[in-house]
């Protein structure tokens, strides 16, 4: 891989390297036109990302009464979040939701990818069908499933009664035991296609000749998968897992619409709690502090993500 570097990075680098000035500003000045290409992107990203981050951190140290000016209150927002029992309960919910969703979606998504890469008639159609849940909106998804889980007339309850498994309507989204598993099921339904695409993309990078060689050496299908395919997919798997975890941590719409965090806050996760604090209770200060806590958690994950992402890049350059 590393051997191909000069060819791939080509021209500009090679040509410029010989007479490239040392001073970074001189180089920046000489290459001003390069920046013109990324300027619009940078500009947009700055206003909608850098500024909001700074402002959130600023607000997190203030109490924000609905009328009147913001009042500095130091770390009070932070301490009140972390000492509240509620925070830890919601953290538990978030972990439950994220870990179970990620594992299930990953297993199903990988299975779907392994199938969708086999060659058979109608493969394009099957791929298309698998991707539908991912494409439709979270709001539509939420209502479809609210209807499926409806306790009196829903599909699940109705079918189970019809089959004689239960005798009275099954309460799902209003039950403290079943609401979270039901939400997780919907979440997996919605997200497994994403994992499928990522894994499909990864599977296509596995060189054919390696598989054929393994086959010739008498490796079974499982052995081929375990010793040839899997090692090749390591990078993709790490990136996909990280993205899925982050995606799950940030899923707002499904829990918000389907249960609103209820019953008894058993389906409140960090994100829905932040939203409720800010836009239901209008406590922007404390919600900002909560956001900053989330920032820190995400940043630590971003670190691994960037490492995984740029690992391939460095090798190529």
């Amino acid at each position: 891989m590393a051997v191909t570097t000069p060819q791939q990075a080509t021209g500009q680098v090679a040509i410029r390297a010989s007479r490239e000035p040392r001073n970074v500003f001189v180089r920046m000045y000489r290459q001003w036109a390069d920046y013109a290409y990324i300027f619009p992107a940078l500009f947009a990203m700055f206003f909608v990302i850098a500024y909001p981050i700074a402002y959130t951190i600023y607000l997190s140290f203030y109490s924000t009464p609905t009328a009147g000016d913001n009042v500095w209150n130091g770390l009070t927002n932070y301490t009140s979040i972390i000492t509240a029992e509620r925070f830890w309960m919601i953290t538990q919910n978030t972990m439950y939701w994220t870990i179970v969703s990620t594992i299930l979606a990953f297993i199903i998504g990988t299975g779907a990818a392994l199938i969708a890469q086999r060659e058979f008639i109608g493969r394009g159609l099957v791929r298309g069908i698998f991707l539908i849940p991912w494409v439709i909106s979270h709001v539509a998804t939420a209502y479809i499933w609210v209807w499926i889980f409806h306790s009196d007339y829903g599909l699940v309850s109705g079918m189970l009664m019809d089959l004689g498994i239960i005798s009275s309507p099954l309460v799902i989204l209003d039950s403290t035991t079943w609401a979270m598993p039901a939400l997780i099921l919907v979440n997996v339904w919605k997200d497994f296609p994403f994992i499928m695409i990522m894994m499909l993309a990864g599977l296509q990078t596995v060189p054919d000749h390696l598989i054929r060689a393994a086959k010739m050496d008498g490796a079974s299908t499982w052995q081929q998968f375990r010793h040839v395919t899997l090692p090749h997919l390591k990078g993709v798997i790490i990136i996909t897992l990280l993205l899925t975890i982050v995606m799950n941590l940030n899923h707002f719409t499904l829990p918000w619409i389907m249960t609103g965090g209820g019953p008894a806050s058993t389906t409140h996760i960090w994100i829905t709690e932040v939203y409720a604090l800010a836009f239901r209770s209008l406590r922007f200060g404390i919600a900002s502090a909560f956001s900053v806590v989330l920032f820190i958690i995400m940043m630590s994950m971003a670190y691994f993500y960037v490492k995984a992402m740029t690992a391939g890049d460095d090798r190529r350059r």
Partner: protein
Amino acid sequence: MAATALSREERLERARRRKPKRQIRSTDVLAWITLALLLLFSLVPMAWMLSTSLKTQFAALQLPPEWIPSNITFEHYVRLLSPQSEVGQEFLRYFWNSIFVSSMTTLAAVAIAVPAGYAFSKFRFPGRQGFFIAVLIRNMFPAIVFLIPLFIMMRAVGLIDTHLALIITYLTFGLPLAIWLLKGFYDNIPTELEYAARIDGASRFQAFIRIIMPLSSPGIIATAIYAFIIAWNEYVYALTFLTSRELLTLPVGLQRFFDEYVTNWPGLMAASFVMSIPVVIIFLVLQKFFVQALTEGAVKS
């Protein structure tokens, strides 16, 4: 002698033919079962939505649930899509708002992401790596963490309750992945092509527009689909930024419908269905480009 040789050859030939077949068969069966289960899993909710939307309100509340409605009715669709009815007017308004916001976002996202992706791929300017990492990090941040400051900011500049506020925010959600996808695409286009154009007298910008852009059209289409779908489906920001009823986009509009017609499940399912059609169609038609772009761009090393 000749006969035995032939039969041995024959036997070998048969064994050769049989062996791979038998090996494939056990995994094949497993694959077909998994395929069937997965198809069921993906399709049942969609089928149930469609089936419910074709029932009368009364029939929808019957037990046991009916898969194929005995009386198929299109009344809910007619009501949603006819400009005469009150519900129809409202729904069509939301629909139009969604189309407007999503198309504008898509146009802007493509216009911004194409040059940026190209620059990240081909140019070596100071700070390039840093910018790229910043772009990647954005991928890790939950949209909702930006909600509070953006809300306050938009309120300060008077953009609350406008479509512009939504277009600006959606744009930046899509940009990081779009830039990343396109960068991967441009990495695969040989720089020699550009040099050839330059030698023929084109400026760098001309080479970019005439040579590189057409070659990367699958990547650009993928970016466009991605930006469109994100904008079409987005809910939280629309919920927070928009207050006037006539400005709502479909996801929030659907929620309005839900609050107002809680018991009219067929109507709600019809609305969900109509709302899903555009993205599903766009996606199915252009899926090839999307998967190709991800394959080319996202995952390689």
